């Protein structure tokens, strides 16, 4: 049994208690490892994520289990077919981004919770906090494409608030009205609405931001969702001032209900980003196998900070 301080971490205690009654191979084994390796730092983060997810109508246990099993169903398919389930962006738009049963049923909540329940996502989040957040220091204006649940925007705004930095406004663009609703609700719990400007928009079309108007950018788990990642990166590059940091997270060999572009190697992803006007500053590559050696999940993820030339 996992023992954590109920008074200090009430949401986590209930959440873990409920998960422990189930098959521990799914989530509990990963939570145990993260607790062992990161102790209070980890459980403080889990508590925060559970607080942020509290505006949802679905229980966090159902959301994480539905998200995880839907994801695993896609990995099984990938093993059998060696190709992604979807090829058409429009099909994904209808079935996922524009579908409240998916987006509000488990997708947004579940993806948010994976940040604290899947080892690979927790490590990616730590990479973001250690390598990208410090690069946003003193910057006034930034843009995230495909913000989904809004956790990254939350972390940036929290940093601004904690450090008492003068006006830092962040812009977010996402194709789904459900992401917009979810992230707005999440951010409004802690920040005044004039600090963030979220809009519905498609990175496959021209962006309505002036050239060189942004001082940092984020494209986390988004370029594998579109047909022409290079065009999307060029649009982001256009908005960024020279020397601005860009945070990119991109998985390969990772089938999902909304992934349409796979890559042959991590090197291919890096070269693609570099070819659109960036240099690589820092990177880490995470794979599911590194955390669960016996797993048949072939997901590998590039997690990196680039700098606009």
């Amino acid at each position: 049994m996992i023992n954590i301080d109920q008074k200090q971490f009430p949401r986590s205690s209930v959440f873990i208690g409920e998960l422990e009654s189930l098959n521990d191979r799914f989530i509990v084994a990963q939570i145990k490892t993260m607790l062992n390796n990161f102790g209070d730092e980890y459980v403080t983060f889990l508590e925060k994520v559970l607080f942020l997810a509290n505006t949802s109508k679905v229980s966090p246990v159902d959301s994480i289990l539905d998200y995880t099993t839907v994801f695993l169903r896609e990995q099984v398919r990938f093993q059998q077919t060696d190709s992604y389930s979807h090829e058409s962006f429009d099909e994904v738009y209808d079935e996922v981004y524009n579908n409240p049963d998916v987006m509000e049923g488990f997708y947004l909540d579940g993806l948010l919770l994976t940040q604290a329940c899947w080892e690979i996502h927790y490590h990616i989040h730590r990479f973001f906090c250690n390598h990208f957040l410090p690069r946003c220091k003193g910057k006034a204006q930034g843009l995230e494409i495909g913000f989904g649940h809004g956790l990254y925007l939350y972390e940036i705004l929290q940093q601004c608030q904690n450090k008492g930095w003068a006006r830092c406004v962040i812009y977010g663009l996402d194709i789904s009205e459900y992401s917009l609703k979810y992230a707005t609700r999440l951010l409004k719990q802690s920040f005044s609405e004039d600090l963030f400007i979220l809009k519905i928009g498609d990175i496959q079309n021209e962006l309505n931001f002036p050239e060189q108007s942004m001082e940092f950018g984020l494209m986390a788990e988004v370029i594998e969702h579109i047909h022409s990642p290079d065009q999307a990166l060029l649009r982001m590059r256009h908005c960024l001032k020279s020397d601005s940091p860009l945070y990119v997270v991109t998985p390969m060999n990772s089938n999902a209900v909304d992934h349409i572009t796979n890559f042959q190697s991590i090197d291919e992803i890096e070269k693609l980003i570099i070819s659109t006007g960036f240099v690589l500053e820092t990177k880490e590559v995470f794979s599911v196998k590194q955390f669960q050696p016996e797993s048949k999940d072939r997901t590998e993820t590039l997690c990196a900070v680039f700098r606009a030339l």
Partner: protein
Amino acid sequence: MNRNEIVFQLNTIFADIFNIDKSTLTDKTSAKDVDGWDSVAHVMLITSIEKKFAIRFTGREIAGFKTVGDLIDAVEKKTIGK
């Protein structure tokens, strides 16, 4: 479908996925006892069962199955009247 038929079909699916001898399976067999029964294999098992019996499990149900017996019970419940 009666319990024996379910057990027979499930054992065939198990043997196929994990490459094991059917006779080694009992109601109490769990992931600990079978090599390669990780979360991906667990879901592979579930999708094969869903296909075979034309049923569908939720995330909570899938994560709740710990033993072969749990699976047999669940399939039996879902196929009542089929």
